[in-house]
């Protein structure tokens, strides 16, 4: 029980600080927003109803799923996987691995993605129409010793896949790996050395120490920039047309607009789709950040709070 008397101050009912400039800013923004919205409505070249229609056209939706979303997932899986491997190589004691990882990162960071996609889609197919999978230098060796076989196991017809999403995923993924390697390396280095030492002292071999102890903690540092990379990748899938892969959101919706002489709605349709996909990704990113931040003074998730309550009840 709290008693209030003249010499014992009670509850505080203070007036909050006033922020007049916030109201001014709000007014300015309201006016600007109003102008933009009014132009949406009055300038019929925007033609939003048609943009919404384009968004739902089956080639556009197919481009969204098979090009943009599938391409993003594929490229990020390749990029993250290869990037982590490269990061571990960069930090390894083996100078050959370190060198390879360094050269890889240097090369793919220097090549624009658009150029890389053209290179893979057009250039590579021109140079090597078929990939022979076999013993290295098998054809030369076989020629030299006069063998029937040329030591080739099978031939991959590159031209048959050169304008598929797989080449797009390869190009974007290879490029992404170079960036992910830097992110993963920073993440691994952010983990206190004592962690790996504690694991080693328990008898864990280095590989397991990395997978079970260091990488999960590095994730806390790796996830936020990886989320950004993923969102950037969604947008970079619009470069797939360079391969050329045309089952892709922007190409399809732009083409649809052109065919119907409604250029702006076509662009707007793609824009809205990108906004939707990226917004969903941002939500997912903040969820992942919370998951990998567990044990680091982050507020416990709701399930954990529940569990704690249940335990307290017993």
């Amino acid at each position: 029980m709290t008693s209030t008397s003249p010499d014992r101050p009670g509850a505080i009912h203070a007036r909050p600080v006033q922020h007049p400039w916030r109201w001014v800013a709000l007014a300015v923004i309201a006016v600007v927003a109003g102008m933009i919205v009014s132009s949406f409505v009055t300038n019929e070249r925007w033609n939003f109803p048609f943009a919404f229609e384009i968004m739902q056209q089956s080639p556009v939706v197919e481009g969204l799923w098979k090009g943009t979303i599938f391409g993003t997932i594929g490229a990020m899986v390749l990029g993250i996987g290869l990037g982590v491997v490269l990061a571990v190589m960069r930090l390894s004691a083996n100078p050959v691995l370190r060198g390879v990882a360094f050269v890889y990162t240097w090369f793919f960071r220097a090549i624009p993605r658009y150029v890389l996609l053209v290179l893979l889609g057009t250039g590579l197919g021109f140079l090597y129409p078929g990939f022979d999978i076999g013993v290295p230098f098998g054809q030369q060796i076989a020629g030299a010793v006069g063998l029937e076989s040329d030591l080739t196991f099978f031939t991959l017809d590159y031209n048959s896949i050169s304008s598929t999403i797989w080449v797009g995923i390869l190009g974007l993924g290879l490029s992404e790996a170079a960036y992910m390697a830097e992110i993963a390396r920073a993440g691994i280095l952010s983990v206190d050395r004592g962690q790996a030492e504690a694991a080693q002292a328990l008898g864990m071999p280095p590989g397991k120490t990395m997978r079970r102890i260091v990488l999960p903690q590095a994730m806390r540092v790796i996830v936020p920039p990886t989320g950004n990379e993923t969102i950037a990748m969604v947008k970079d899938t619009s470069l797939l047309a360079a391969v050329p892969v045309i089952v892709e959101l922007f190409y399809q919706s732009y083409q649809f607009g052109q065919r119907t002489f409604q250029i702006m709605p076509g662009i707007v349709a793609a824009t809205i789709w990108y906004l939707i996909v990226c917004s969903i990704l941002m939500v997912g990113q903040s969820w992942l950040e919370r998951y990998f931040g567990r044990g680091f003074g982050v507020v416990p998730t709701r399930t954990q709070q529940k569990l704690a309550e249940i335990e307290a009840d017993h």
Partner: protein
Amino acid sequence: MSQRHAATGFPDEPLVRAVNVTKAFHGTEVLKGIDMDVHRGEVVVLCGPSGSGKTTFLRCINQLETIDGGRIWVDGDLMGYEDRGGTLHRLTDKRMAAQRRDIGMCFQRFNLFPHKTVLENVIEAPMQVKGTSRPQAEAAARELLDQVGLGDKPSAYPAQLSGGQQQRVAIARALAMDPKLMLFDEPTSALDPELVGEVLKVMRDLATRGMTMIVVTHEMGFAREVADRVVFIDAGAVVEEGPPDQCLGNPQHQRTRAFLSRMRREEAAHARAVVQTVTGTADALGAVGGLDDESTPSPDEAAGRHPTT
């Protein structure tokens, strides 16, 4: 078979035998030929000034550092190397990991895995290294957590625990591998004074159960009570060793005496600081000042205050 050593009363074949161990960092010799035998069930306390090489020596025993010279055997195994016809071959990472399984280590800064709960910390190594099944590992872990007084905290994350609790989890985590040797590197030096006791108690229990332990610590009370032998190290070499009464009570070496009197001064200053925070009066300082000999700094110095000029 079990002959006993005449002097120490321990079985003859030592569990740890270090012979002429040397180690340099960037050309600076940090360990200068350390010899040490630790027998089964023996508790050895290592002490010595900061920077004297105590941590490095512990880390050499379980090969977290490679040694430049000498040999270390644990339970008859040469650590880190294989002797093939007189030539030493460095062990692979895998085999070195296998050697470390039987040696538990507790660090000054605990080094618990922050992304894992207390229980997960303890079951991690048995499951991942020994291939113990989860139910078995969990049962053993719960028993160990009970033993260190944390049976009620299996699902807490390390960050939710006090330092003393974290260090006790770290001890349980090391014990989960059923080690034959435990290494402690200043396990209580990062703790608030009121938390030191709970960790020392767990270590005392462990010693009572017959664990072989090498403990780097400046807790002289613990050394006197629990240690079978105290080894004093200075500048990378063993200066003096013997039973705690002798080594701490009647040190032969000037350097040991200097170190011990410095330790006592620090302890007294510490006690004074505690008293000061408790009572908040300068009078109390004077009262405790009488605990120590004439080498005691004045209460003003001890409290970090400068006399007004």
